[in-house]
């Protein structure tokens, strides 16, 4: 009863604070829109491609594509040197029938541009190859038809003297020419699908920077705003004396904590839904898995953030001191959340990520959005988040003893 009353009160306060509410909903959308624009603009990036023993034709086709410059190198080592000096962004090397591509990959949009240019160049080359093959075979066919007609005429002329042997020989010749022309055609198609291997100097193949960031970003916004706003709210209760007054009634300490959890839980659900819908419809991000699972995981994360915010607010004496937790608590979470590949860090550094709640939610949401995992496959990540939640909630209920001894 009291828990519900506290929840109602907190919600009422929140929904009357229009600016904070707008911050919670509009800011994430705005930032994500900005980010998607910033990280997905490969159309205007100029890329320099170095090629080694690639056909003139492919070089020319790629060079014809806008924003792509092609430079041909004699040896691979010369191209490698240019790659290291940042003169070129990628090397395309032909080994027999196969291609080996090496990307600098310091800029994922450039890598994407090179991939696209190579693909287009290759398609254009194979199309022109096909075209010429087709031309050859059609001219062959025309010739053959002419030959056949000639033979038929011959046959008609020499109807009395049935020169069956000659006719048979002519027919044989015709089939032979036909088969060679088809052979040619099949040969050219098999040539147009060479094996392509990709190498990256830095990082790995991600579908795109933003796509990978998105699930973590979503969690980050939920975590950040719930942490900050709930922490501030409880801080305000403390500094204005309402907490003292609240605790001077027979209310249980746990009721206060749960009341806050319920209200911010509701807010987090709405916020997550808004963020998910925005990213899906406005930014056109594909969610392979179940959207409800994404909301559930973000809800748990929000509750962790809430408990964390309330706990830390007891160590702050003013709003400004609460803000000081952002570089201490929020920013490090971003580093270890998986936005920056953890395997590129030293072991002891990446081990820190095990105590970062954002990492677990990021992993789980990532798997759901990008790989379509079910929520039950992410049981481990959810379990860890729940452990965080239980411990922090418990600490909060104990922590309120500071203000009332029972």
């Amino acid at each position, binding site marked *: *009863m*009291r828990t519900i*009353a*506290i929840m109602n*009160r907190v919600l*009422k*306060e929140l929904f*009357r*604070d229009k600016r904070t509410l707008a911050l919670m909903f509009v800011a994430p959308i705005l930032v994500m829109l900005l980010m998607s624009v910033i990280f997905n603009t490969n159309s205007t990036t100029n890329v320099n491609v170095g090629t080694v023993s690639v056909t003139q034709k492919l070089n020319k086709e790629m060079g014809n594509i806008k924003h792509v410059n092609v430079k041909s190198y004699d040896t691979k080592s010369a191209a490698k040197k240019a790659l290291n000096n940042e003169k070129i962004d990628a090397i395309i090397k032909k080994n027999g029938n196969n291609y080996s591509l090496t990307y600098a990959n310091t800029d994922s949009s450039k890598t994407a541009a090179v991939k696209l240019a190579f693909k287009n160049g290759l398609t254009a080359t194979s199309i022109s190859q096909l075209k010429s093959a087709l031309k050859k075979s059609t001219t062959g066919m025309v010739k053959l038809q002419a030959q056949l007609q000639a033979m038929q005429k011959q046959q008609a002329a020499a109807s009395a003297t049935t020169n069956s042997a000659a006719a048979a020989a002519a027919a044989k010749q015709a089939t032979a020419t036909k088969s060679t022309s088809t052979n040619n055609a099949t040969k050219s198609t098999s040539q147009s699908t060479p094996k392509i291997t990709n190498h990256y100097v830095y990082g790995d193949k991600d579908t795109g920077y933003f796509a990978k960031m998105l699930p973590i970003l979503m969690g980050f916004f939920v975590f950040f705003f719930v942490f900050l706003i709930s922490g501030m709210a409880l801080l305000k209760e403390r500094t*204005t*004396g*309402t907490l*003292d*007054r*609240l*605790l*001077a*009634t*027979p*209310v*249980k300490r746990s009721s206060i904590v749960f009341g806050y959890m319920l209200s911010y839980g509701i807010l987090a659900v709405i916020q997550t839904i808004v963020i998910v819908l925005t990213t899906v419809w406005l930014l056109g991000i594909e969610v392979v898995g179940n959207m409800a699972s994404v909301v559930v995981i973000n809800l748990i994360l929000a509750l962790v953030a809430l408990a964390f915010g309330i706990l830390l607010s007891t160590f702050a004496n003013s709003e400004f001191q609460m803000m000081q937790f952002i570089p201490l608590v929020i920013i490090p979470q971003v580093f270890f959340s998986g936005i920056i590949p953890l395997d590129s860090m030293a072991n002891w550094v990446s081990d820190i990520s095990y105590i970062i709640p954002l990492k677990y939610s990021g992993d789980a949401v990532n798997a759901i959005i990008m790989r379509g995992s079910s929520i039950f496959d992410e049981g481990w990540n959810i379990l860890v988040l729940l452990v965080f939640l239980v411990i922090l909630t418990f600490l909060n209920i104990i922590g309120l003893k500071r*203000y*009332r*001894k*029972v």
Partner: protein
Amino acid sequence: MTNAVIELDHLAKKFGDETVLKDINMSLNKGEIIGLIGPSGAGKSTVIKVALGMEVASGGSAKVFDTVMPNRQLLGRIGYMVQTDALYDTLSGRENLKFYGIMKGISKQEMTKEVDHAAKVVDLTGDLDKRVSGYSGGMMRRLSLAIALLGNPELLILDEPTVGIDPALRRQIWKELGSIRDEGRSILITTHVMDEAELCDRVALLLGGKVMAFDKPAALEAQYQVNTIEDVFLKAEGVE
């Protein structure tokens, strides 16, 4: 078994190394108004906090309704007014009253009656549906007092209730406090306004963590051979 509502017995309170209360002996009887006076930092608020069970006594004991504090259930029988206004700005006066009413455990049926009564006492009936952020300082103070009055508590603990309230309303509030006392309920009040101290049944003069004097205002004035409580206060502090 006395009829003491609050009984502080050799109460001591330390915060770390700092001793705030040394030896407090005080009792508040049924149907009595006790004024707690003393300079800032004398420990008035600490006495209140211990009585409410927000702090635990380091020595001695604090009993309310014959029960050793802290005790959560007893808090439902105490009306407490904090020094700061302690209101939710974004809520209306009525919503504030209702919220604290639920926290105190007032039933739904009683709520409207209780809220209206408390608002009437502090003369806020007309402004009850305005948001608190639009209230004047005096109105906030009155609403804060109204919250303490909710549910007819047997014990009222008021921390400087009349700061920022104009004289006419102050008189009205004291009249109400008087009638609360006459109903047999008890009031512990801290104040800086010395002519208010004269209105109390007994006055406890708190200085340096000790109760320097605890008696009827007139008796205190006689003891210190002065005419007003203000002079008692000054004399006890050693200003004169």
